[in-house]
C-alpha cells in the first residue's frame, strides 16, 4: 500500500511538472510546420513563388519586352479573401511582390495607400526640406499592369476528417487596355484528421 501511495504521489508530481512547462524553439523560417491545417506562411510562399514563376514564363512577358525593351511595371491591386478562413492577404501580397522582384523581370509601383503616404512626404519636403534635396512632383512612374486575384476554399468535413481545398486565382490586367494578359491558378489540397479520443 505504501508503495502504491508513493507511486501515485510521484505520478501526480510528474504530471504537474509537465503540464506547467512551456517550450519555445527557434526554427528555420522555411521549415514547413502545419498545426491546424489552415492557410499558413508555407502556403503563402509556395503559392506566390509558383504563380509568379508561371506568370513570367508566359507569352505576355516576351511580347511586352519586345514591344517596349524594358521590364513591365506592375502594381498589386486587391487579393480578395473569399475563403472560410481569416487569411491575411497583405502578407500574401508581400510574398507576391517579393517573388516578382527577386525574379528581376519586373518592377513594382507602390500601392495606392503607399503612394498617398509618399505624396504627403513630398508635400512636406516642398515646405521644409533644403531646396536641392526636394523631390519633384509629376515624376512618378505609372504601372503597366495590375495584379489582382482571389483566394477561395472548399471545406468538406465528416467526423474528425476534413479536406481543405484552396484555389488561388491571380490575373494580370493591362492598365491601358483593360485586357487580361495572364490568368494563373494554384490549388492546394489538405487532409486533416483528428482522433476522437485521447488519453
Amino acid at each position, binding site marked *: 500500500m505504501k508503495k502504491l*501511495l508513493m507511486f501515485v504521489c510521484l505520478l501526480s508530481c510528474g504530471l504537474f511538472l509537465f503540464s506547467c512547462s512551456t517550450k519555445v524553439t527557434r526554427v528555420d523560417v522555411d521549415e514547413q510546420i502545419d498545426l491546424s491545417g489552415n492557410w499558413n506562411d508555407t502556403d503563402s510562399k509556395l503559392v506566390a513563388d509558383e504563380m509568379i514563376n508561371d506568370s513570367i514564363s508566359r507569352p505576355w512577358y516576351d511580347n511586352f519586352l519586345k514591344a517596349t525593351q524594358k521590364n513591365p511595371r506592375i502594381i498589386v491591386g486587391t487579393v480578395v479573401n473569399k475563403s472560410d478562413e481569416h487569411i491575411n492577404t497583405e502578407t500574401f501580397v508581400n510574398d507576391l511582390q517579393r517573388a516578382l522582384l527577386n525574379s528581376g523581370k519586373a518592377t513594382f509601383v507602390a500601392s495606392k495607400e503607399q503612394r498617398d503616404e509618399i505624396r504627403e512626404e513630398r508635400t512636406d519636403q516642398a515646405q521644409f526640406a533644403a531646396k536641392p534635396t526636394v523631390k519633384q512632383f509629376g515624376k512618378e512612374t505609372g504601372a503597366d499592369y495590375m495584379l489582382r486575384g482571389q483566394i477561395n476554399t472548399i471545406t468538406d*468535413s465528416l467526423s474528425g476528417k476534413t479536406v481543405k481545398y484552396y484555389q488561388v486565382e491571380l490575373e494580370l490586367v493591362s492598365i491601358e487596355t483593360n485586357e487580361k494578359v495572364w490568368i494563373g491558378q494554384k490549388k492546394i489540397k489538405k487532409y486533416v484528421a483528428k*482522433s476522437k*479520443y485521447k*488519453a
Partner: protein
Amino acid sequence: MTKTKFIFYVCFSVSVFFLSSCATGRYYSQLRTSIEKEDYAQALTLAENSQSKYGDKNLFLYYIDIGMLAHLNGSYEQSNSYFEQAKQLYLENYTKSISAGLFSLFTNDNAVPYYGLPYEAAYINVFCSLNYIMQGKNNEAVVEARQADNLFKKLQADSQGKAFYQDDGFVRYFMGLVYENAGYINDAIISYKLALKTYPKSISKTNAPRDLINSLYNSYLALSMTSEAQNLKQEYPFVEKTNLKNEGELIIINYNGIAPEKTDYFLQMSFDRAWFYYKNAEITDEDKEQADRIASATIAGFSKDVIKFSFPKFVRIPNSIVSFSIKGSSEKSFTAQDMATMMENYLSHYNTTIYARTIARAVGRYLIAKQISNNVEKNSGEQTGSIVNALFNVANSLIEKADTRSWHSIPENINILRTAMNTGEQEITVNFYDKNSNIIKTKNIKVQITENKKTFIAVSSIEK
C-alpha cells in the same frame, strides 16, 4: 483495518472532494450584476481578472463569456481575439479525454472539460461577424458566414441529419444580411432560403420574420431572378420592392435580457436506523450553494445510508422588456431568436441521458461505498466501519453536483428592427416596451446612415 488503509481512505475522500468541486465564489453573481447595470466595462474587467475561476477545463467557456462581454462593451477587435481562441478550442475539443470521461463516472459531469455546444459555436460566428461589420471589415464578416455554413454542414454530415441542433434559422438569416451587406447577393439568397426553410424547424420555435422574406424577394430582384421573385410574392403577398433613394437601411440588433442561468437541482435521501431525511432543493445563488452543500454533507455524515442526485435546470433571469421601436417611426422590432428557449429546449432534449447517467453514477457510488464500508467493518470492527461509512457518505454528498456550466453573457433573446432612414448623421430615440406596450426604458443613439447601404448597430436592454 490497518493505519495505512485508513489514511488512504481519508486521502481518497478528501482528494475526490477537492478535484470535483468547482468553486467560483461570487463571480457569476457579480458578473450578472454588472450586466444588469449594462456596465460592460466593469463586467469585462471582472472577467479578465477571473480566468482562474473557470479553470483549465473550462477555457472554452471563459473565452465565449469574455468574448461576448468585449463585444457588448464595443471592444470589437478584442472580442474577436477572444472568440478566435474559443473557436480553436472548439475544434480541438473534438478529441475527447478518456481519462476525464472515466473520472466523471465516479465523480460528476464537471470532471469532463467543457467541450462547447454546437449552438455556441454558431453564435460565436454571429457575434464575430458583427464585430467585423462594426469595424468596417465587411469581407471578414463574410468569412464568419462561411464558417457558420461549414459548421452546419459538418453537424448535418456527422449526425446524418439527425442532430438535435444542426441548423439555425436566425444564424442563416443574419448571415444572409452579412452576405448582402458585402455585396455577395447570390450567397445572400442561398442563406435567406435556408433561413426560411430552417426557422419552422428551429429548436427555439421562433417564427420566420417577415423582413427575411422581404430580403429574399429584394435579393431575387437585384439579380433579376424575376420568376423566383414572382413565385415568392404569390406565396407571401406582403413582400415589396425596397427603394432606398437618398436613404440607407438601419438595422438595430437588440440583445434583450440575460440568458437563463443553469442551476443545480438536487434530491438527497438520508436514512438511519431511526430516521429518514429527504431534501429536494434548487441552488440558485452562489452564497447559498456552499451552505447547502455543507448542510447536506453534514446530514450525510450522520446517516447510515445516503443517496443524492443532482440535475441541471435553467432558471430565467427576470426582464420586463419585450420589444422596442424608434420614436417617431411606425416600425416595431421582431424577435429574431429566442435564445433562452433554445438553451432550455437543448438541455431538455438531453435530459433523459443526463438523468440516466446521474442515477447510475449515484447508485454505483453508493454500492461501492457500502461494499467497502461493510468489508472494513468485518475486518476492523464496527467503529472503524462506521467512520469509513461516514466518510464515504460525506464524499458522495459533496461530489454529487450537476453540470451547471453555460454561457452566461449572451442575451435572453435577439430582437431586430430594420428601417429606412435619411442619409447622414441621425440621432434616434429607442423606446423599449413591456408586455403591456408601456415604455419602460429609452436610449438615445447617434447613427451614421449611408445611401443605399446597411448600417448595423447593437443595443442591449434589460429591466427587471
